[in-house]
């Protein structure tokens, strides 16, 4: 299965749609009005302007990594962040697709990524007579162990390519995982939805050894009144 292609289709589904019948404001093929179409498919849009969509389409039409390299990225990312039940790992999070996209989106990363992948196979071939993706987990770890530490006192760009490569791949793997649906579930982030903020829960306050000052809290919104229209006296005291 060409995972990359299917991902592109998914992303561009929304993108192409918005270019086609929203910004040009015409009737869609099945005769629905623009508003209907927006309402039905709004979950597909991610708020891009036509120029931004064009750029994404252009990047998607290019290919940075060949199939072997993409597979190697997949294997390496899984070594970096092994899957864990029930939330899966980098593959489920679409990390290889993200690496492909970002390598084109931020072109300065591409040489490090391409060069690093070559280094990885060369090193593995030299040591174990096999390319990285086909090596055993033990062999893969042996190679990673050599490049996964960096001297924090020296600027990264002054360190060997393989160190830089691993640093970038680790960054892309972790960020890719925790910005995915599975990774956000693993992290446990509860936001990004309509909510009523009414303070830190008591057990959390206790855990961290802090408390609310009653005088401060008295000034804060009583959430049961949030729907009442605000009125003030002439001195600015809230009456409702």
């Amino acid at each position: 299965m060409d995972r990359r292609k299917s991902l592109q289709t998914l992303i561009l589904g929304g993108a192409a749609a918005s270019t086609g019948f929203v910004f040009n404001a015409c009737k869609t093929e099945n005769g629905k009005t623009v508003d209907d179409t927006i309402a039905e498919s709004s979950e597909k849009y991610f708020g891009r302007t036509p120029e931004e969509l064009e750029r994404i389409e252009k990047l998607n039409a290019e290919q940075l990594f060949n199939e072997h390299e993409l597979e190697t990225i997949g294997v390496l990312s899984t070594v970096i962040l092994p899957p864990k039940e029930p939330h899966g790992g980098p593959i489920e999070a679409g990390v290889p697709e993200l690496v492909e996209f970002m390598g084109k989106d931020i072109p300065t990363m591409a040489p490090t990524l391409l060069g690093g992948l070559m280094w990885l196979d060369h090193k593995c071939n030299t040591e174990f007579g096999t390319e990285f993706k086909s090596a055993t987990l033990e062999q893969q770890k042996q190679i990673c162990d050599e490049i996964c530490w960096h001297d924090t006192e020296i600027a990264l760009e002054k360190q060997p390519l393989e160190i830089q490569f691993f640093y970038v791949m680790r960054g892309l793997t972790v960020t890719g995982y925790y910005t995915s649906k599975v990774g956000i579930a693993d992290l446990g982030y509860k936001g990004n939805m309509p909510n009523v903020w009414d303070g830190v829960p008591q057990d959390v306050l206790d855990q961290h050894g802090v408390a609310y000052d009653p005088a401060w809290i008295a000034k804060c919104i009583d959430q049961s009144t949030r729907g009442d229209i605000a009125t003030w006296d002439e001195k600015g005291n809230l009456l409702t």
Partner: protein
Amino acid sequence: MQIKESAEVYDVIIVGSGAGGGMATKQLADAGFNVAVVEAGPFFDPADPVTKTQLKWPYESPRRGAGTDRAFGGWDMSWGDWDVEGEPYTQEEGTNFRWWRSRMLGGRTNHWGRISLRFGPKDFKGKTRDGHGDDWPISYDDVKPYYDKVDKLIGVYGTNEGLEDDPDGFFLPPPKPRLHELFYINGAKKTGIPVYPSRMSMLTKKINEDRGVCFYCGQCSRSCSVYADFSAGSCLIFPAQKSGGKVKIFVNSMVREVTTNEEGKATGVSYISKDDRKEYKLKAKVVVLAASACSSARILLNSKSKQHPNGLGNSSDIVGKYLHDSTGSSAAGVIPGLTNRKVSYNEDGTGGMHVYSPWWGDNSKLNFPRGYHIEVWGGMGQPNYGFGWDPNGFNKYFGLKVGGYGDSLRDDVKKYYGSVVGFGGRGEAIARKENYCEIDPTTVDQFGIPVLKFNYQWSDFERNQAKHMQDTFEELIHNMGGVPLSEKPGKDQDYGLLSPGQIIHEVGTTRMGNDPKTSVTNKFNQLHDVDNVFIVDAGPFVSQADKNCTWTILALSWRASDYIIEQLKQQNI
């Protein structure tokens, strides 16, 4: 190419649709005038599902929200940033000014932090106070009634604290502090830095039937689809249209100049339509510039005529001068007391901060005039591209090894999630004539309009203030039991002082005053030289204060609008 001229004569043309232009639109349309709004960017409504970024998940973007196509991150609701394609600006050698522009209806109000601070009595009388800069020709008492009206019309949360230079208002109740903010309150108390509820323009409570109430997604920078935060489009321009006002909006229309007649009075504007790249003319009795401080200065300087050879309103040669931005320096620390957090609850809150510190210092003991306030950030926010990039980089602060891979990464991400607290100092820079923008005679934008060239340098006052910020942040991080995330910037780095323009509070290019020789507008934002041209963005600011400028732009625009209404009714202009 023939310039296409419309026959209609509007009562007022308003150039720009941000805070100043939005407020003028609302007031003048409500007063029954026939208003044309000319905006350089496209139409934007935060409720439109096609362009909406609010409540999107990172995985809905192929770059997971990275800032490649929007400088403040892929979800930030600003179309345009430090660079706008085809619209360059230049710098005087050896200086660096960064100019943020949002090309869209509502302008920069769609993505701003919504920190809504009134200036205090002292802020209008800088020269009297300490000998630096100049006094405004108006006082707090002139603006207070308008601040009050803005509070009620737009909505702002905060508390009445009776502070001398952070005056009380008509506030909605603030939200409760979040966990990292409780740590901040405790840390600040240890050294006597005051902390109060923030003053921000999000609706924690209903103010009318047209706008929604905040649902605490923390994403105000994406502009609110239920209009629960202040954006000029949703809170001023759309209501002006709905209330029966005569408002015609021209989008994608880049104003080139204000046109004038033989008597030197303004007759309207000429603009380039970005859609067909042709030049058009609109006519009006009054022209209100609200294009943002530097853009309005640019329009005036480009409006040269026989009667105004130095540019419109520029007989004083002051247009473009006294440009100044807030100072800014920042720091962040990891707080061990905030590690290993329970993720059992939604901590998004309102966008930005729930608490802040207004300026507390005694300048007689300091080596800089004026002050700054502290903005606080932190918490368990939405992960986006960059999250966990250096997942255990913090280990170095605790004597642990940095790097590695495997399951420990997962643990480290969770251990440190929500444990970082950051501070931004935002302070007052002294307005100086030597800091300015002017027309670059050698460069034009893609519409053939001469562009701005900036010339701005910080003085030691600003550098000393930034040093004070850094010392304060170090102390705060220490008081919170934390470790700074980066080395404290020293003298060689101007103590982390950001470049002029980077705080995006640029003001002062068309400053107001009683003397036409040293100022551009009078105290009603009206050009000294041309009585039917007004400027209602931050250009007329004499000084910046250590407050964000939007609330004052809104108040002064309303005040100027009242004056315009009166003058039009009396047929004085």
